[in-house]
């Protein structure tokens, strides 16, 4: 581990702690929902981070197909894995909030359904990576990564045609939406903390993927020399 990585980890830990204090002690209790609303400070940052990582996966996949660098493929893999993890957090924290507020765990509403479909697409990406063999994995995965990303707007259009039960976008959702100033502060701190955490994970996974590859090559070379 490099010094930079350690320093980055320390800052992320502090930010997460500070974000936690913001979300649990400083942000006011929501008027109608009560304390349950505080899960929002984790739900929303996770969602944004997950979507961002899927976009990173798309860019890295495209970059791989153009330039064929190991780095691009490692980044695509890392972004997809961490993105799926954060998307899983979104899908778990959502129902925990929905149960007391809506009275149901799940509903086939537009945003929930499209997030689930997105999750399915990127899980299938990881499944392909797991089952494909040999040096062709990066190309196949990159192709699927691009397919998945191109599918996102179509999924969104298709599913929006159903009526929406998810709360209208709280941020930038038109009249009557909007957050109290202190809630905003909590959201932003947690967003920063989660983004840092995601970078940390992607970074670690990226280095690990590259190391794995280097190890494999060294092994093949050693085997060749032994013969």
């Amino acid at each position: 581990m490099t010094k930079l990585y350690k320093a980055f980890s320390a800052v992320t830990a502090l930010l997460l702690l500070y974000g936690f204090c913001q979300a649990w002690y400083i942000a006011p209790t929501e008027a109608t929902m009560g304390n349950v609303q505080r899960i929002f400070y984790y739900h929303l940052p996770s969602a944004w981070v997950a979507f961002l990582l899927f976009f990173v996966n798309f860019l890295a996949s495209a970059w791989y197909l153009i330039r064929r660098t190991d780095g691009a493929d490692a980044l695509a893999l890392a972004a997809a894995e961490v993105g799926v993890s954060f998307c899983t957090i979104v899908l778990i924290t959502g129902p925990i909030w929905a149960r007391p507020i809506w009275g149901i765990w799940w509903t086939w509403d537009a945003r929930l359904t499209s997030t689930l479909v997105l999750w399915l697409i990127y899980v299938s990406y990881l499944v392909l990576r797991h089952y494909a063999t040999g040096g062709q994995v990066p190309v196949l995965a990159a192709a699927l990564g691009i397919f998945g990303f191109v599918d996102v707007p179509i999924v969104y259009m298709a599913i929006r045609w159903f009526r929406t039960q998810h709360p209208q976008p709280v941020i930038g959702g038109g009249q009557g939406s909007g957050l109290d100033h202190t809630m905003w502060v909590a959201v932003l701190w947690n967003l920063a903390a989660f983004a840092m955490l995601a970078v940390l994970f992607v970074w670690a996974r990226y280095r690990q993927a590259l190391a794995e590859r280097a190890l494999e090559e060294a092994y093949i070379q050693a085997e060749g020399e032994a013969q």
Partner: protein
Amino acid sequence: MSATPTLWSITRRSLAKDLRLEWRSKDAINSMLFFALLVVVIFSFGFDPTAEESRRIAGGLLWVAVLFATVVALNQTWTRELRNQVLDAYRLSPAPPQALFLSKTIGNFLFVAILEVLMVPLFVVFYNLRSVGPVWQLLVVALLATWALVVNGTFFAALSIRTRSREIMLPLILFPISIPALLAMVDATTSILTGDNSPYFWMRLLAVYDVVFTAVSLLLFEPVLNAE
């Protein structure tokens, strides 16, 4: 054959070869047909609908049956080319890979279309189906939907033959991506059968899906074919 083969002439030749092979062996179409028949029969055990109800659920049942049967056919698309290293020969030849992809896709389109032509009467008989909306709309939906299934399916079959346990791999990567198309074909069909809603939004969505994914497939097929 003209001196310089064009994309279209190579596509046509490759397609003719696939159709002749299929005509003589009937591998894909037979297994697909029997599979679809089984699905229809099993569904009708699962649900026992009245004529009114069956209009609402038939769209879903029909397309799910077609989807499953399509996977059966798609799995055989490329395995035929693996024998005797035919696929490697394609890679070495100067023929554009897009021609190969197009011929496979058109071939699958024809197989699935034949399957639908044979299956729809079955549905009509088993589920006492009568459409409230105009039938020509159903035809348009069927054409768009079939292309949507086979264009991605043919591409993903080319991905999945490169993996371990390739038969199971295809649905795992095809179904998630196809969800919007499935939603569109099922809802369009249901709207037409019941006559409750306009199917135009879904038809447009299917058309967009077809155009987008045909373009992406043609663009990405070459690196996938040549992946080592």
